[in-house]
């Protein structure tokens, strides 16, 4: 694709797929924007008058919006912190040559293959349930009493469930990065007098920095739209303690039958995601350059 001629040909050849992709994205987006300017309620779908930015005003000034925004951020940052730090520690552990490392690795990766709905149900009923849950039985056996996880610390519970789902991903990426660190470098550092912590800080961490950025980037994209885990465990409650932006949009549309308001919420979510993506891509770009 070096000459002007081949470039022009390439453009023509690529045009159909580019156009299809564009339509694929543009049409739903345009329709959502269109709906977001209507007073469109499913109780009265016959009349959908144009109301301008009123839906946005309602959505953004709704006190639930600010809670949902905070919850979304806490959820994303909490899960990122747990999976990145836990992922690094686990990857360091699995990187050691030890007996049965292959099986342990498989076990660590396994949660990744469990569907979010299933894992949330398992956590809700088998782990966090104050009566039957394993955690409750364990703490009771220790004489510590029980915590009703999903009603007493609902957001933390969601963070734990989602972290459990995403930890394998982080471990997988970070372990691969760790394994590509040359033994020579570690040995050179060892001869230079670096201890375990210095080697980690000066050699290992810079080496896996790029992989960490990739983990953060990919996880953030998915964590911004967590829904199934909330839906099957807390239903956004108690109150709206675990309502994040996607769940708020859902509640608006299907619990209050307000299609216009939900569309406005959807657009707000898209804008938020783009702001986050903008900063993330800059972060990654900087890391990929060096």
């Amino acid at each position, binding site marked *: 694709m070096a000459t002007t001629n081949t470039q022009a040909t390439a453009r023509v050849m690529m045009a159909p797929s580019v156009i299809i992709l564009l339509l694929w994205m543009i049409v739903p987006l345009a329709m959502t924007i269109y709906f977001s300017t209507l007073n469109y309620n499913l109780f009265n779908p016959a009349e959908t008058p144009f109301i301008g930015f009123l839906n946005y005003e309602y959505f953004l000034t709704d006190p639930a919006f600010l809670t949902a925004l905070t919850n979304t951020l806490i959820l994303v940052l909490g899960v990122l912190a747990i999976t990145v730090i836990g992922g690094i520690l686990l990857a360091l552990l699995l990187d050691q040559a030890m007996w049965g490392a292959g099986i342990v690795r498989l076990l660590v990766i396994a949660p990744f293959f469990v569907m979010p709905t299933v894992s949330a149900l398992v956590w809700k009923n088998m782990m966090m349930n104050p009566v039957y849950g394993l955690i409750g039985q364990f703490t009771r056996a220790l004489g510590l009493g029980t915590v009703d996880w999903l009603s007493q610390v609902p957001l933390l519970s969601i963070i734990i469930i989602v972290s459990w789902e995403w930890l394998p991903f982080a471990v997988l990426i970070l372990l691969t990065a760790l394994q590509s660190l*040359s033994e*020579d*470098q570690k*040995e*050179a*550092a*060892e*001869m*230079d*007098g*670096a201890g375990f912590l*210095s080697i980690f800080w*000066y*050699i290992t961490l*810079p*080496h896996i*920095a790029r992989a960490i950025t990739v983990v953060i980037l990919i996880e953030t994209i998915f964590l911004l739209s967590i829904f199934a885990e909330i839906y099957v465990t807390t239903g956004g409650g108690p109150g709206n303690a675990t309502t994040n932006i996607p769940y708020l949009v859902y509640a608006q549309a299907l619990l209050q039958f307000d299609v216009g308001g939900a569309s406005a919420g959807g657009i707000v979510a898209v804008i938020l995601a783009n702001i986050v993506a903008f900063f993330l891509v800059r972060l990654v770009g900087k890391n990929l350059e*060096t």
Partner: protein
Amino acid sequence: MSGIQLRNVAKRFGDAEVIPGIDLDIQDGEFVVFVGPSGCGKSTLLRLIAGLEDVSGGTISIGGKDVTDAAPARRGLAMVFQSYALYPHMSVAANIGFPLKMAGQSKAAIDQKVKAAAATLNLTDYLARKPRELSGGQRQRVAIGRAIVREPEGFLFDEPLSNLDAALRVNMRLELSELHAQLKTTMIYVTHDQVEAMTMADKIVVLNRGRVEQVGSPLDLYNHPDNLFVAGFIGSPKMNFIKGAYAKEHGAATVGFRPEHTTLSKESGAIKGVAGVSEHLGSDTFVHVKLEDGTQVTARCAGEMAVRHGDTVWLTPEDGRLHRFDEKGLAMREAAPKLRAAGSGL
């Protein structure tokens, strides 16, 4: 005093015995080269001395202190790896200064020592660069810089020049010898290249399958190899070996003579053969000769020697330059029996 002593040092990896047991004395300030074919355990031996591997038996002492169980950093040795093992995300200055930083020295002291090392190694203009922005030779120098700033009691080099092209290798060889002359620190240098060993070493240790075949000065090994392995390994081109009748005449199982101690003639000589390929190097010509029993030998002749492929030629080993070996391949040092008349053929 920082001589290094190995006493019966052994190393096994699982069932594989890589080094059965080595005794070795390295004097303070000596440039010692471990040389041997690939896989003979040179790197392993070096890593045992460095402390990067644990010994399976025996003791290592440095400067009179037993360091067999000491951590690498406590042995006072610096190592230059074959891959250089530079820290890719650090600048050249940070790479060179890393050991000092780990030793907890002040920024000012580190800065000053890094500058001094960079000046010695012609790296001053590159201090701010990252390793991947340097050429192979420059990376090599950074690795050496990182080793010398620590002012170690000894340097360990593991095939440091094998990633460089031929011209650069010759240069770096000279620079390393120069560095040793300046610093007068003990250096242990591992290579599979006998030319590097011959040109740089005060003392060569020839290794084969984890055993020491011979220890000595380069000329010692060249003139008085203890056995067939050393005789064949040291010197380029390789020493010629002849078995059979000609060897028996000299009272040996095998006799050896170097290509450069061989006279080639088209008329007469001690051993008859057929000329094969001639390699013209300008100053010399190497003529490859096939003897009647199929043995391949080489003779070094003057540059303008004109021998055609297929010519019949005679070879005569130079007087007193014949090496005799017994059935076990060990050198026979006592005087050879009196030669009968020359020209007896094979």
